[in-house]
């Protein structure tokens, strides 16, 4: 379990060897990258579940994709522009409404915890 911000920045090591050896620490490494804490029990559970899924997906290696271009989207649209004009007549009122969902606000701005430490 990650207790401090400093330990969250430990080097991530997840080789295929560690993934396949039954060692579940690779999941802990991924979870750290993804900013999720796992209990020991969750680590084992997710390692089993995700390991099974990823192993199944190795099926894709059978497909020869030499010379095939990747598809990221199917619309065929490129560079969709619109005029950058203000369409919201409510202005501040609307801003205040959006800010209502923030846990801490100060003078019309959202308050954020310190990036390094809160003193």
């Amino acid at each position, binding site marked *: 379990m990650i207790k401090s911000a400093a330990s969250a920045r430990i080097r991530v090591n997840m080789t295929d060897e560690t993934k396949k050896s039954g060692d579940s620490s690779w999941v802990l490494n991924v979870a750290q990258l993804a900013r*999720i804490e796992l209990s020991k029990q969750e680590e084992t559970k997710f390692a089993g*579940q995700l390991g099974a899924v990823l192993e199944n*997906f190795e099926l894709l290696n059978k*497909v020869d994709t030499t010379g095939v271009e990747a598809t990221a989207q199917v619309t065929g649209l490129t560079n969709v522009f619109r005029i950058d004009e203000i369409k919201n007549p409510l202005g501040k009122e609307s801003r205040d409404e959006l800010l209502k969902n923030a846990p801490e606000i100060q003078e019309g701005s*959202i308050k954020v915890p*310190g990036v390094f430490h809160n003193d």
Partner: protein
Amino acid sequence: MTDLYKLTIQDASKKLKSAEITPSELLESVIERVEKVEPEIKSYITKTFDIARAQAKESDKRYSAGKPFSDLDGIPVALKDVFCTKDIKTTAASKILEDFIPAYDATVVSKLRDAGAIMLGKVNTDEFTMGSSTENSAFGPSHNPWDTTRVPGGSSGGSAAAVSADECLFALGTDTGGSIRQPASFCSATGLKVTYGLVSRNGVVSYASSFDTVGPIAKSAADVAIILNIIAGNDPMDSTTVNEKLPDYTTFLGHDIKGKKIGIPKEFYGEGLQPEVDEILKNAIETLKSLGAEVEEMSLPSTDYAIAMYYIIAKSEASSNLARYDGIRYGYSNLKHNKNLQDLIDLYFKNRTEAFGNEAKRSIMMGTYTLSSGYFDAYYKKASEIRTLIKKEYEEAFKKYDVLVTPVSPFPAFKIGEKLEDPLSMYLADVNTVPINPAGVPAMSVPAGFTKDNLPVGMQIIGPYLGEGAIIEIADAFQQATDHHLKKPEL
């Protein structure tokens, strides 16, 4: 007339226009129905009956003045809880959004309001639409109206169950890999996954942005056509929406389908397909033949790779989309009850750990893994290349066929709890629906029959890019010739 809640949009609209009934009468009948069956079905997360009653009164006035806004004026609708609704809680069935109140309406919600539709409330889904059963909802599962020990499917399970149990006249859902079609199939509703970009996603909670679509779940193909006329079209707020001029989808109703060419992709009828489902599909195909359609077996060879391709891309996009839930601007925030946070990263860890459910966590971790340096080429890039192969196979197929017909799911609704702790088998259950989203084409789930245990089975009709009309034409002809879609669960 009693039992107004059972009406289709088409029939309700006729009665409203002829002043046989009023929108308020229709609404009260539906509300009464919801109150009666909801303890068993649990479709709704949030009910907005006060708003609905006020809207219905306005609609009453429009009808008495002879000036309804549209064919959806006065028609009660349930919205999957992923559509932003101004001043009404929008949760995506996640603890991380349990108190989120949007400041604006999604474009489709505005369109429905402007059309005069009556908002009944927000219905259940798997958390962030990730799942095939609604069991991943932070608020508990919905139940299948045909057998309440079974799942309604997912992720739009609340929408499909609500339509099937007559708790609304229609619902909106979203479909990223089958989330409209599979629950529609499990609950015996008619659900359309539209062409990617046909309906605006502005104000809709994202799962996998290159696959996500918005579409209707209704009681008939004719009703789907009426809804599509209102919700389809370009939106400057969603730059992926199509620019093409769209047809009036109701003009595809009541057609003769003689000579229509229907392809039967053999990969969808292989191993894993339950014999009963196979038999129901064969009968449905015989019906289409008897209506004059020309049916032919064909092949989409890359189908076997669709699940792996789909889930790699979907979870990669999901891990990126879910990064926005930082507990700073909106949503669950550890800041609200913890004044001892060390720093920003501490907040990220606490929020995500405390407020995401298991499938959301699995998605984030899997996506983080497949997008990480050293694994990107083997997973994400490879999957994106295979996506190209699959998309091309569909393009080729539609040079020859008007539509393709397959089962929606290899089996009918499964038991609640059966697959929950086995994500791989849950993913594999989506085998027939996931190939469609990467290709970007439309597909509809149409009730095709029932198993011996009286569980619904759906037929998937797949059409070409922007070929919603071709699908509606075949589905409507099928529904004119059959009565599966008219059967109701005993509740």
